[in-house]
């Protein structure tokens, strides 16, 4: 209805009034209120993935235990119990649902071959086989058992790992254990930079 139409309607209304000249509008007064979107959701506690304040968050998920339905994240907000954030979130935390459900998520492993201009999809098994071969070749060639001074050093100078500020402690620990067992010395994370 345009504004112009309204005036027409109000003119007509002088003759025929649907709901009475003075009466109450008895239609539900609640039409404006939408259903609370988290009312049927299950709550799962998580922690914000961004800075190191460590804000506790509650993720609201619907569709648990329903047949043929994939549980869906509908909302994330701060955990009011937390002594750190007391239920609050900054703009980053308040929009973590969009990070969790990011549209441009990569869903398949890919490889870009030397000199190529494009990515190609690759099966996990093939990619891991290839990479394990690269790692072994590099390690076998570039592991220094004794340094120039003849001291036992058992270090792998072939490859390194950077990362870890965004993964959990348990994953970080396993990363350190794994790469140290391979003899790696080039191991760094965001704390340095």
């Amino acid at each position, binding site marked *: 209805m345009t504004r112009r139409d309204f005036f027409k309607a109000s003119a007509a209304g002088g003759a025929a009034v649907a709901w009475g000249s003075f009466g109450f509008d008895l239609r539900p007064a609640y039409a404006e209120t939408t259903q609370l979107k988290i009312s049927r959701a299950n709550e799962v506690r998580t922690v914000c993935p961004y800075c190191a304040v460590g804000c506790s968050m509650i993720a609201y998920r619907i569709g648990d235990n329903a047949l043929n339905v994939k549980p869906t994240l509908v909302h994330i907000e701060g955990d009011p119990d937390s002594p750190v954030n007391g239920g609050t979130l900054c703009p980053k*935390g308040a929009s973590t649902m969009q990070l969790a459900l990011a549209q441009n998520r990569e869903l398949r492993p890919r490889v870009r071959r030397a000199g190529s201009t494009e990515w190609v999809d690759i099966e996990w098994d093939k990619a891991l086989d290839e990479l394990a071969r690269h790692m072994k070749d590099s390690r076998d060639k570039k592991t220094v058992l004794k340094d120039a001074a003849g001291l036992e050093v058992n270090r792998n100078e072939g*490859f390194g790992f950077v990362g870890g500020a965004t993964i959990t402690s348990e*994953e970080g620990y396993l990363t350190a254990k794994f790469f140290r067992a391979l003899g790696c010395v080039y191991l760094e994370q965001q*704390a340095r930079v």
Partner: protein
Amino acid sequence: MASLAASFGRGAMTNHWRDFKNSDVILVIGANPAENHPCGWKWAHVGRDERGTQIIHVDPRFTRTSAIADVYAPIRAGADIAFFGGLINYVLQNKLYHEDYVKLHTNAAFIVASGYQFNDGLFSGYDEAKRTYDPATWDYERVAPTAPGAGGQPAGSSGGAEALGPAAGAPSGGTQSPVAGGTPAGGAAPAAPVAYAKTDPTLQDPRSVFQLMKAHYARYTPEKVSEITGMPVEKFTDIAKRFGATGTPDKVGNVVYAVGLTHHTTGVQIIRGIGLLQLLLGNVGRPGGGVNAERGHANIQGNTDNAVSWEIFPGYLAVPKPGMNTMADYMAKVPAKASAPNAVNYFGTNYKKFMVSMLKAWYGDAAQPDNDFRYSWLPKPGKNSSWLTIHDEARNGTLDGLFAAGMSGLNIGPDSKRMSDSMGKLKWLVVMDPLPTATSEFWRAPGVDPKKINTEVFFFPATHWIEKDGSFVNSGRWAQWKWKVLDAPGQVKDDNWILGQLFLRLKALYAKEGGTLPDPILNLKWDYAKPENPSLDEIAQEINGFDLATGKRVSSFATLKDDGTTSAGNWLYSGSYPPEGNLMQRRGTSDPTGLGYFHDWAWSWPANRRILYNRASADANGQPWDRTRPGIRWNGTAWVGDIPDFPATSPPAEGKGSFIMTGEGVARLFAPGALTSDGPFPEHYEPMESPVHNAMSKVQNDPAVFLYKDAKDTFAAVDSEFPYVATTYRVTEHEHYVTQNVPYLVEAMPDFFVELPVELAEKKGITNGGKVKVRSKRGEVIGIALVTKRMRPLKVAGKTVYQVGIPVHWHFAGGKDTDPAAGKFRTTPEMANILTPYVGDANVRTPEFKGFLVDVEKA
């Protein structure tokens, strides 16, 4: 955080977020918590409303933190040591220091050996050709041990300090064992005894730390500070008065900082400067006090603790150096030795228990006493192997491959062009990330010809935080478990799955083909229920550790042994997952003291202590300096309050040193020996690129800064064509680069911009909202000009210095007008780190992102 360890013994935020409400004055410098840590920062506001906390902000830019501060003062980027030197001097000259605290809890009374000298910007022992110091002269004057029971090791408690079970709140048995080193099997290495330091409790000896410090900082007058920093003298003295007022026992001041201070060639010494100031004022170890580093990523603390870091193993055990051939060599050289008869020296004393327990977690049954617990398998790097070195090795063609997991080196820099060259020299690069990054796309970045890049790049789609459980450790050392919310979509896999798959393949290859040093791989303890995808719960238990005889998880690191009968992946987390369960999952909300400890919420290292060094919150009699804000208190039989960072039942009369992690037993105003690479006291040097000559000495830059190949040619000199000081930073709407994938945040802060002073913009014809080009000697970026009075011209050594602010969040492979999957990128150069210099801190090689030179022009 080498700086904090050098001062106090551990490298972490001393207090925690909630504790900010307990401060009388908060000095925020080199940080912008209102923007970058808003939900933690709230407690400063609570403090202001409830107790009148004053908020002081010192920063090159007037930010959203400045907007709510009581006092704001501008400072030239990189001039922070001059500022802290000035504060230290002001506090000393005006006798504002907390004398009882200084005498009791610091090494102010220690006498420094006569060989130590400082002369016109150089400490003794400098080798100009090598650009390094020999720290031999940076030591105390030693006297033969005289204390009763002192021998190879001082009388001390073996387990007492760290013995408190997090839940128990009571000391475990035997905590007062006078036997140093624990077991006869060699808790303490049979090292040569280190003589104790000579002391002068009156602090009057001219060679005392106190007097040397006083002399060193007498040069940092308010006028000198102003000349270097550009901060007006009256602003400086106003701040000095306000913060200096926290030197009384009933007041507490808190210094909050972040990478605005550490991203300098002098970063470690800047933080040491905070340490000195806070120790003089008696603010360390106390509720409302401390030296509080704000970490910038969800688990940067947890994975520093767990040692995704070249120089440490989990729990800050040092990575051995060549020449430390055996465990005995290592134990003789690495752990701290007691320098004072009353030092607990907990870490030094128990080092071997932690190391052996880690090796048992890694090598299981293959690690036995008769094979040195496979110590020899541990790699021994021959040189610094940190971030800059790794990419330098790649650039030199010596590195074959690199994994980049949740970390985009191209954006991070420094000198993104150089980083790109480095990556292009790799044979293979593995990017593990949920989303495309500038690094995964580096080979087809604007201006790069993919055909010339022979790096094979794998993109492994990894799970988001919300698709797995596991713990994040916040800046305040709280390990908080989280629960999995969603299943991973598509073929996305956990990081652990990728590691598990690779490990099983490598193990099979080595079993089949042999190769170089196969044993550490063939014998790695990987007996997880699902070896192809170890569960995080299982790993959390491994980190906590086990009593191998009973198979039960240990309750505390106090029960770890050096004979191979216990395992612990990370001793610092022993007690996080005791037999009763995973304490990181706790969500109790009780706060009986009202001080905000929340001991039942999650779990914090060490031993659930919420404030580190809390023995220093009390006086010689064990009573709190401020009764309204007790940290811990001696109740006649035990220390109560927070979990004591001290032997739980050692009475004050016993006089044990309050800083249990240092060999001195106290905190270090003077950092002796190799604790730092560039001097026992912080000294001001100019950033590698500076518009002015050093006004403190003839030494322009930190003399121990390492110079990478070819890098020096890319630095601009004083009075060059690059006259303006630039600094980089984050804004509240973004977190590094990943938030370019979040539409609401792109909307909230859409475009790359550059903040510059009105006066400079006028001079260059740059208009607000128009385009500006910023050039450094390494490259250029183009952004929207945000011309603002918030960036103030400074008077530095008679010159007008303009500063330019460049946020880091933008890049070609995300955000507006991009579709990385389709190779659609933005072509305007927008990565701040295109501009930054390839040089790092003299101690830890953290790059100098926060002060360098540029020119600007209208674009």
